[in-house]
């Protein structure tokens, strides 16, 4: 008997043994389970008092929150309100932090000069490291400190499973799992966290699709870019609360585009490289609970805000130094940064951006939080350092560099759709254990981003609107 037939024989024998075992185990298992439940029922009958009042509350709320008429609009409304509170609440503390940190920069700068530090050291540490960190802190900290607690509150209330309940049918049409909406919700905070959250999806195929598309939900590192550009170019004329409301509307629209792309890409993946049928889904809808405020604040501030901020700062500091060096090292008459931007410019122009923007996105691979500071630093590196304390100055800077509404829209779309950050890619590799799928997690969004921006730009230019 050759080895292969022996192996085949063994395999067949194993299979048969497994079938017999399973047929008995199912029967035996059923009896054990029925017995356990009988026991549990008896115990619970004796010790548990039913709070019908609380149940009625949940029933009544669900009559609205998961109804045909209000289910979807309410989800949109909740998203819009959270964004609006975040944007309008973050404005003032952001400005205050920026003013404080940039005046600290001046003091630092003077200190360096007084000590007679060499210009390059002064540049790297103050204009490179400190400037980037100050930007990241002042732009990111306030929205995070508002957004995360609000989101944790929603989680604590028990609303998120209802989102999955409402959206499952759409996911089923894309042949994926409704729980993907929960992993997308996590992605709002951080895509790396969203990718890890995909473990809750049972089917490996559907889990992989959720991992590969998580990036289409803008994470906290990308929100500030969307908010800043939305404010500068979307609603320049409005002021105060009206402005915050309009920006919240724009961002909600951007998120809806991201959700649409998630469905579209999931649909395509389910019918191409990850072919398969929708598997089952079991979803528990727990009763609504009164949130524990202290635990919400602790969890959102310590576990999330500080965690994400720490990561952002630890990336921004060295990145700031490197970018300052690249911007201030000259080959011939032109700095390395300008060389690179010049080389990228033709590609960038085709998708309605410029070389500096594309370079900022590329250099921002370690963390999306630093894309904006890199862009600003490269725009102003040619001239003297200017203080950018208000969005109006930022608007002037961008318009000076040839930005139009089309540039703004393209940058927002590219921010939403482009490749995941380094941390997310590393997490994807860890979760999938495969270089191939990590590469796919990079290539799919990149292709989508370039395609969408290219088509939009060429169409607008063809129609002569831009």
């Amino acid at each position, binding site marked *: 008997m050759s080895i292969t037939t022996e192996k085949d024989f063994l395999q067949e024998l194993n299979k048969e043994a497994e079938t017999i075992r399973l047929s008995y185990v*199912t029967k035996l*298992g*059923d009896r054990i*389970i*029925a017995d356990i*439940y009988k026991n549990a*029922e008896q115990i619970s009958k004796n010790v548990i008092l*039913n709070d019908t009042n609380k149940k009625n509350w*949940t029933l009544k709320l*669900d*009559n609205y929150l*998961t*109804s*045909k008429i209000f*289910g*979807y609009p309410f989800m949109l409304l909740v998203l819009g309100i959270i964004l609006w509170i975040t944007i309008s609440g973050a404005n003032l503390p952001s400005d205050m932090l920026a003013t404080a940190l940039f005046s600290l920069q001046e003091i630092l700068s003077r200190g360096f000069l007084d000590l007679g530090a060499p210009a390059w050291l002064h540049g790297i540490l103050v204009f490179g490291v400190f400037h980037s960190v100050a930007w990241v802190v002042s732009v990111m900290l306030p929205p995070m400190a508002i957004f995360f607690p609000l989101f944790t509150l929603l989680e604590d209330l028990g609303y998120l499973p209802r989102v999955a*309940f*409402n959206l*499952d*049918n*759409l996911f*089923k049409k894309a042949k994926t799992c*409704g729980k993907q909406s929960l992993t997308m919700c996590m992605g709002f905070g951080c895509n790396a966290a969203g990718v890890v959250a995909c473990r809750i999806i*049972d089917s490996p195929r559907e889990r992989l699709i959720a991992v590969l598309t998580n990036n289409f939900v803008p994470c906290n590192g990308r929100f500030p870019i969307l908010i800043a550009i939305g404010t500068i170019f979307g609603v320049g004329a409005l002021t105060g609360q009206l402005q915050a409301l309009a920006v919240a509307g724009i961002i909600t629209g951007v998120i809806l585009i991201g959700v649409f792309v998630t469905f579209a890409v999931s649909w395509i993946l389910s019918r191409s490289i990850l072919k398969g049928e*929708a*598997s*089952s*889904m*079991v*979803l*528990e*809808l*727990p*009763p609504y609970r009164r949130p524990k405020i202290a635990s919400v604040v602790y969890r959102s501030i310590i576990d999330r805000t500080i965690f994400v901020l720490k990561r952002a700062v630890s990336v921004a500091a060295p990145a700031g130094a490197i970018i300052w060096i690249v911007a201030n090292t000259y080959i011939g008459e032109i700095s390395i940064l300008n060389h690179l931007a010049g080389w990228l410019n033709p590609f960038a122009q085709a998708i309605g951006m410029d070389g500096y923007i594309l370079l900022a996105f590329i250099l921002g691979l370690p963390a999306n939080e630093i894309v904006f500071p890199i862009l600003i630093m490269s725009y102003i590196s040619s001239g003297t350092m200017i203080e950018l304390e208000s969005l109006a100055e930022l608007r002037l800077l961008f318009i000076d560099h040839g930005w139009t509404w089309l540039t703004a829209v393209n940058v927002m779309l590219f921010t939403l759709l482009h490749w995941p950050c380094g941390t997310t890619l590393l997490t994807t590799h860890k979760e999938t254990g495969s270089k191939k799928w990590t590469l796919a997690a990079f290539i799919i969004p990149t292709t989508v981003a370039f395609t969408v921006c290219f088509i939009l730009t060429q169409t607008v230019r063809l129609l002569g609107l831009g």
Partner: protein
Amino acid sequence: MTVDFNAIPLSQLSIGSSCRIGEIGLNGLLRRRIQDLGITPGTTVECLRRGPSGDPTAYVVRGTTIALRKEDAYQINVFPI
């Protein structure tokens, strides 16, 4: 084994009505999940509501609410009460 002609798939249970679980025709992981949640033969289950677009459906089992897709609920035989 007696054949009960009144048995219908759980997915056909109308909203607001209750039933007793008969046979669970599911296999593997899903069967385990369903049983872990307390859906065992003889258990009373109430059909609570359908999702905004008609699927999934929420059922009340032993005081908890559990949502199942039509395709999965179809595999569970029940006797309406």
